């Protein structure tokens, strides 16, 4: 139904484009046109499609909630909670669609009939209103075409609005992220105290799972302490940076200061391949090759190593991050003005002394920025940890044991079927929002540091 309506509107818009252009050619014989003939077509098409589609979209957004209020009006005198009302509404909808399998009460049956009736009314009203709007806007637009009004300006203003709305898309995504996370997270914090979440040291959400009925609040208090996850996240990120910073920075220095043009031309893109490999592939590599390898070495040295150690996951993550640091630091060091180098050489410094004492300090803000971006990348990395590090949240600083991270726990909680309204599911969103805040914070600092640095030398 909706599809037919939208197709109809779009087809009508196309026909009105040709119609408008033809009309312009007719007008041309008697008077001077105000714009190219195609603008007459665009004008008609825009007036045809835009109002109808906007109304259609608004209608589709608001119709379900209006129908819902009408249906649930009959239940207001029963003193039901919000969740129960939601359940009833779902039942009514299922009954109307013929997919309901529970026992049917008279009351439900009545509501379902009412629902079907309301839907029918709404549908015919929608078609009628949209047809009316189409007729109205088309006749309005056609009149101004007949009068040979100015055509180009309105079309261009319309286009500009389309462009503006598109640019709001990115903002809309951000709003969507913040609200979807906040909405569930707030409900989570109604069940679990925010204090227990931030400072609790036991993460064991499976404990709260109780079939039918509310979980024990005492258990809830001790099950959602996120400290082990925060610690694990930063610990693995720290291991990753221990691998990535020395290798990345030294490669960056070599590429920008020592390497000949040919080496640079080939080595840089090849190192960047490391950043293009999907993380799930790294995860597989870490779990199958690096993990057992680390374990074997550890056992040979007489240490007890878990097969899913933080070290394996962190090291592989570090390899993935090398190009972020090497490429960015190469860029910022290449951007250091040549006269700083020349000055240092003129004083008799060797190349490495120049790099260490002059170029590196000059490029430091940019390098710090690149490292912060890399840290934010490591904190948000998911698949490597899910596959290579353990899934049990241990609070440990031993790189040979398994730890878990925020991202890995989100996946563990949400893999498979979820039940909304369950504190365990909601806790994933609470973790999500803490992850979002941490990475946002790191990015904002990194970007402002890099930006300040750029201004210094431009």
């Amino acid at each position: 139904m909706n599809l037919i309506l939208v197709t109809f509107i779009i087809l009508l818009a196309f026909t009105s484009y040709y119609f408008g252009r033809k009309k312009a050619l007719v007008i041309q014989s008697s008077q001077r046109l105000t714009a190219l003939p195609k603008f007459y077509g665009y004008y008609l098409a825009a007036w045809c499609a835009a109002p109808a589609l906007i109304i259609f979209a608004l209608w589709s957004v608001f119709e379900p909630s209006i129908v819902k209020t009408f249906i649930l009006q009959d239940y207001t005198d029963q003193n039901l909670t919000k969740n129960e009302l939601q359940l009833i509404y779902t039942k009514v909808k299922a009954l109307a669609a013929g997919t309901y399998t529970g026992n049917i009460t008279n009351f439900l049956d009545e509501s379902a009939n009412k629902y079907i009736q309301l839907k029918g009314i709404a549908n015919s009203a929608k078609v009628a209103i949209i047809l009316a709007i189409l007729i109205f806007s088309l006749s309005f637009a056609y009149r101004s075409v007949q009068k040979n009004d100015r055509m180009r300006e309105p079309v261009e203003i319309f286009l500009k609005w389309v462009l503006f709305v598109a640019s709001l898309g990115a903002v809309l995504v951000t709003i969507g992220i913040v609200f979807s996370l906040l909405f569930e997270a707030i409900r989570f914090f109604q069940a679990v105290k925010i204090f227990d979440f931030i400072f609790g040291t036991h993460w064991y959400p499976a404990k709260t799972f109780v079939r039918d009925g509310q979980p024990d609040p005492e258990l809830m208090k001790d099950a959602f302490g996120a400290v082990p996850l925060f610690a694990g996240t930063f610990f693995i990120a720290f291991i990753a940076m221990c691998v990535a910073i020395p290798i990345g920075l030294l490669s960056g220095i070599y590429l920008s200061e020592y390497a000949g043009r040919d080496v640079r031309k080939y080595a840089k893109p090849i190192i960047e391949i490391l950043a293009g490999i999907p993380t799930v592939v790294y995860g597989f590599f870490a779990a199958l090759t690096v993990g057992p390898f680390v374990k074997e070495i550890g056992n040979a040295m007489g240490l007890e190593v878990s097969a899913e150690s933080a070290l394996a996951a962190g090291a592989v993550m570090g390899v993935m991050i090398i190009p972020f640091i090497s490429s960015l630091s190469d860029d910022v060091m290449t951007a250091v003005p040549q006269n700083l180098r020349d000055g240092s050489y003129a004083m008799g410094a060797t190349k490495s002394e120049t790099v260490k004492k002059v170029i590196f300090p000059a490029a430091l803000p940019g390098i710090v920025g690149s490292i912060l971006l890399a840290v934010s990348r490591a904190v948000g990395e998911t698949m490597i940890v899910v596959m290579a590090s353990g899934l049990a949240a241990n609070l440990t600083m031993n790189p040979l044991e398994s730890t878990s991270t925020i991202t890995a726990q989100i996946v563990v909680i949400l893999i498979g079927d979820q039940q909304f309204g369950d504190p365990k599911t909601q806790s994933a969103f609470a973790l999500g929002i803490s992850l979002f805040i941490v990475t946002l914070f790191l990015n904002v600092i990194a970007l402002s540091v890099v930006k300040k640095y750029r201004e210094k030398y431009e």
Partner: protein
Amino acid sequence: MNSFKKNLLKKRYNAERRFQWYGKIAIGLALSFLAVFMFQIFSKGYSAFQKTWIVTEVHYDKELLLIDAESPSKDDLENADYYDVAYKAMTSLDPGLPEEEDRQLIQMVSYKYEAEVKDLLLKNPDYLGKIVPIKLTASDDVDQVHKGNYPRDIPEENRRVNDYQLQIYDMLNERGDILSEFNISFFTSPDSREAELAGIASSFMGTVFSILVCLAFSFPVAVLAAIYLEEFAPKNKFTDFIEVNINNLAAVPSIVFGLLGLGVLLAVFNLPRSTPLVGGITLSLMTLPTIIIAARASLKAVPPSIREAALAMGASNMQTTMHHTVPLSMPGTLSGTIIGLAQALGETAPLILIGMVAFVNTIPGTPVDPAASLPVQIYIWSESAERGFVEKVSACIMVLLAFLILMNLAAQIVRHKFEKKWS
């Protein structure tokens, strides 16, 4: 020059050499990581492109098939009972085996061997009543033994292939009745719980559909947004806000987009779970900022003289943009788009959250059928314990990497071939 100065100089030069070596070692390490990595994947995965068959003889005996008709129709063949015929085909490999041990032989082929016996007859109805050779898919354990991936010298009780099966295998191998051919079914069959039957067709189609959906949603919006921000936006607080927003969005971890997809697309809009449609939309939200940034950069690279010339000829701002600036910026925008899509192609975590991790053993025909995607398939298989899946994962990774290399090459070609050099 006294000796103290000489020593100092020597020290400094040594430090210089050391420092250079550090740099070389760092680059060498980075490159060797890549090399080791590629070597591991290829050496583990290439054997998955070979499939092992066991050749035996099958007697399409009418009596055992329970076919009564003189000249049976297609339906009769379809409904015949193949159990005994298939069973006999396998047990004839070692007629001396007592009946209660027959599972050992049956386990050497895939559990679908009965269907394979049936398919051969349906394809060649004139085989009825004859004894013909037939190729049966070897079980993944035999397959791994044949490829040499399975050690034969561990004690029997720890081995999934017992001594008797190895003996039969050796006998068949000597007779040349173990065939190894290019594994077409890896590309044409959907996922399966059995390693020897599992293929990437369903996840491949899932990936293709989600990338197309992603392209359809993100490309138009991103390009229009970039045009607005670069060409029309007034310089004020609000457009600054949009800019900061886009930059930050590009750095949000992908899993957060998965939460968005779950919390909004599935819970609020009630779109179908586990489908490439939802996966594609989620990925499109992720690629949106990447494409906007690329498109803005390439719009910025169009020299102002082009705009000035168009304006001087009397074109309006909109005409200048749409007729000149945007077409000239397209190569850069397109290559940025392809790179953004390549990133989306490798994403796993958001797709897991929206349920594209479900076991799907059908090949999806539309974007609203449940499907997996290649990276998710890698995840699913690597969680399986069976040895046969290790090479499947590596092969799947090779397909994914090939896909990525192709896309990046395409981006390079678009950029270098079509981009105009100003100056």
